[in-house]
C-alpha cells in the first residue's frame, strides 16, 4: 500500500470517528453518573433532524445548536422517566431509540414530503491547520478536518481534567460509584444524573449534527445507523476514561475506513470482518476484565 493510500485511510478513519467520539464522550459522562443510556441512538437521529431544521436558517452554527437542543429534548424525556420516575434504564432506553427513529421519520416525511431526498445543506469544509497539516502521513488525517473534529482535541483533555481535578467531576464519579455515600456528602444524585443526561443528550445531538452538517449534507431516515450502540461499545472499550474513549472511537473509525479500503484495494477479505471486529474486541475485553471491574459500580442500577 502506498503512503498516499495510508494517509487517505487515516483521514477517513478520523472522519468516521468524529461523530462516534461525540456520542461516546456524552455517554461516558452519563455512565460515570451510574446511568446507561441505550437510547443514545435516538438522541443522535434527533440531533441530525434538529440540524436539518436549524440549518434552514442558513447558519451552520445554528444547525449545531439545533442538533444539540434536539438531543437535549430527547434526553430530558429519558431523564424524567429514569431519574425522576425511576423506571428501568434498559427498557426506557430501548423506547427512546424507537421514539427518536419513529418521530424523526414521521416528521421528516410530514414536513418535507417526498422532496426530502433532494434537500441539500451546505456543509462545513475541512479547515487545514497551517503547519500541522503538512506533517507527513498523519498531518492530513488529524489536521485537515472540519472544526468539529478539532473541538474534540480540546474536549477530551478538558473532560479528563474535569473528572479528576474538580469537585464537579468528583461528585459525578461519586454518584456513579456509590450514590448513597454521595447523598451522605450532601450531593443530590438525581440532580447530578439529570445534568449528566442532558450533557449526554447534547453530545449525542451534536454527533447527529456532525453527520448532517460536516459529512453527508442532508438528512436520511435512520441515518444514525447504529452509531448510538457503537458509542456504548466504545465507552466499554475505552475503559470509562476520556482518553480511552477517544482511542476506542478512533479504532472503530479505523475499522469503518478499513472496510472501504479493503473494497477499493480488492483485498480478498470479507469487508464485514473489520466492521464486526471492534464488537468482538469489546466482548473479549469485557470477558478478560471480568466484566465490570472498570465500570462505575452503580451502573445501570435503579435508585432506591
Amino acid at each position: 500500500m502506498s503512503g498516499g493510500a495510508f494517509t487517505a485511510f487515516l483521514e477517513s478513519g478520523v472522519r468516521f470517528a468524529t461523530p462516534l467520539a461525540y456520542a461516546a464522550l456524552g455517554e461516558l459522562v452519563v455512565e460515570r453518573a451510574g446511568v446507561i443510556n441505550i437510547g443514545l441512538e435516538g438522541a443522535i437521529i434527533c440531533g441530525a433532524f434538529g440540524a436539518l431544521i436549524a440549518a434552514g436558517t442558513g447558519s451552520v452554527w445554528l444547525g449545531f445548536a439545533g442538533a444539540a437542543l434536539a438531543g437535549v429534548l430527547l434526553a430530558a424525556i429519558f431523564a424524567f422517566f429514569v431519574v425522576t420516575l425511576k423506571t428501568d434504564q434498559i427498557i426506557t432506553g430501548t423506547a427512546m431509540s424507537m421514539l427518536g427513529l419513529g418521530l424523526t421519520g414521521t416528521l421528516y416525511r410530514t414536513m418535507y414530503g417526498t422532496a426530502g431526498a433532494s434537500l441539500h445543506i451546505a456543509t462545513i469544509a475541512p479547515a487545514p491547520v497551517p503547519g500541522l497539516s503538512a506533517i507527513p502521513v498523519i498531518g492530513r488525517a488529524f489536521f485537515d478536518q472540519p472544526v468539529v473534529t478539532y473541538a474534540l482535541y480540546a474536549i477530551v483533555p478538558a473532560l479528563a481534567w474535569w473528572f479528576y481535578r474538580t469537585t464537579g467531576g468528583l461528585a459525578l464519579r461519586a454518584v456513579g460509584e456509590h450514590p448513597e455515600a454521595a447523598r451522605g456528602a450532601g450531593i443530590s444524585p438525581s440532580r447530578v444524573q439529570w445534568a449528566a443526561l442532558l450533557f449526554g443528550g447534547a453530545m449525542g445531538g451534536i454527533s447527529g449534527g456532525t453527520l448532517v452538517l460536516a459529512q453527508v449534507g442532508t438528512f436520511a431516515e435512520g441515518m444514525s445507523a447504529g452509531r448510538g450502540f457503537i458509542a456504548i461499545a466504545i465507552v466499554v472499550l475505552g475503559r470509562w476514561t476520556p482518553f480511552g474513549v477517544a482511542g476506542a472511537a478512533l479504532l472503530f473509525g479505523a475499522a469503518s475506513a478499513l472496510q472501504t479500503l479493503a473494497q477499493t484495494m480488492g483485498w480478498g477479505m470479507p469487508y464485514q470482518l473489520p466492521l464486526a471486529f471492534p464488537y468482538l474486541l469489546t466482548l473479549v475485553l469485557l470477558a478478560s476484565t471480568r466484566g465490570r471491574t472498570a465500570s462505575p459500580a452503580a451502573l445501570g442500577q435503579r435508585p432506591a
Partner: protein
Amino acid sequence: MNALARMVRSQAGASVIATLLALLIVTLVIAAGGYDIGHAATALWNGSVGSPYSFFSGTLVRATPLIIVGLAVAVAFQAGVLNIGAEGQLLAGAAAAMTAGLAMTGWPGWISVPAELIAGMLAGAACAGIAAVLKRSFGVLEVISTLMLNFVALYGVSYLVRGPLEEPTHTYPETLRLAESARLPVIIPGQRLHLGFIIAVVLAIAAWWFVRSTATGFRIRAVGAGAAAAASAGRVSVDRVVFGTFLASGALAGLGGGVQVTGVTYKLFELISPGYGYTAIAVALLARLNPLAVVVAGIFFGALEAGGAGMQRDAGVPAGFVYAIEALVILGVLAVDRVRTYAGAHSAPVAGERAA
C-alpha cells in the same frame, strides 16, 4: 373509588390505558402534520382488519414473528434476564434455517422443514449462549454483550448473503429461494398465513402453562422477583435458572427467524428483520410478560404495522409513526406502572428488577 382507579389497578387495564395514551399522542401528531384523520383511520382499518385478506395475510402474518420473539423476550424478562439481543438471535436463526434448507434440497418436507426450524432454534440458542456464558463465567452484563452480538449477527448475515450463500448469478445480495417442499405450508388457501402462526399460538399456550404450573417455571419467576431471595431461600440455583432461561429465550428468538424464512420470505437477505427483536420488547411489556397476552399484543402490533403500511399507501401518512407508537406504548406502560406503585397496587415488576 371509580372505574378509572379500578382500571389502573388491573394489569390489563394498565396496558389498555397506556395504549390509548400512545394512540392519542400519535393522532395529535398526525393531525398536526395536516393529514385527514378520518382518511388515515379508514386506511389503517382497511390495511389491518378491513378485509379477510388484510387480516390473514397482513396482520396475522406480521404478528407471527412478533409473537414468537415476544415470547422469547417475555420468558427472559420473567427471570430478570435483560436479553435485548433477540434481534441478533433471530438473524442467527434465520441464517441457520436457510442454510439447512438449501443443504436439504430434494428432501421430503416433513424432514426438511422441522430440520430447518430446529437449526434456527439451535443457532438462536448458541447466539444467546455466548452472552449467557459471558454472564455466568465472566460477569459480563448481558445488556452490553447481547447488544454487541446483534451487530456481529448482522454482519454475519451480510457476509453470508454476499459470500457463500449468494445466489449463483451474483446479481442480488440474497440467497436462492427455498424449494416448495422446504417451506412452511399455507394454512388458508388463497392467503399468505402459514403454519408458523399456529406454532406461535401453541408455543404461547405451552409457555403460559410452563411458567405457571411447573417447578422450573416457579423457579424462573422466583429468580426474576429477586435473585438473592431465591438463592437464600434455598433449592434455587440462580445461575442455572438464568443460564437455562437465556438459552430458551435465544432458541425462541432463533425459531422466530426460522419461521420467517420458511414461512414468509423463503430466502435470506440483509434486511430480513425490520427490527422484530426490538418491537418484541414492546410486545412483551404490553403483555405484562404473560405468554397468553403476548399473542394479543403481537396481533395488535401486527395490525398496527399492516395498517401503517396501508396508511402510507392510501393516506400518505409516514409508516415511521408505528415505531413512535411502539415507543410510546412502552413509556406508557412504564409510567402507568409507577403510578400504580405510588397508588400502592400490588403487582409484579414490569421486568429487569435488578438483583442488586
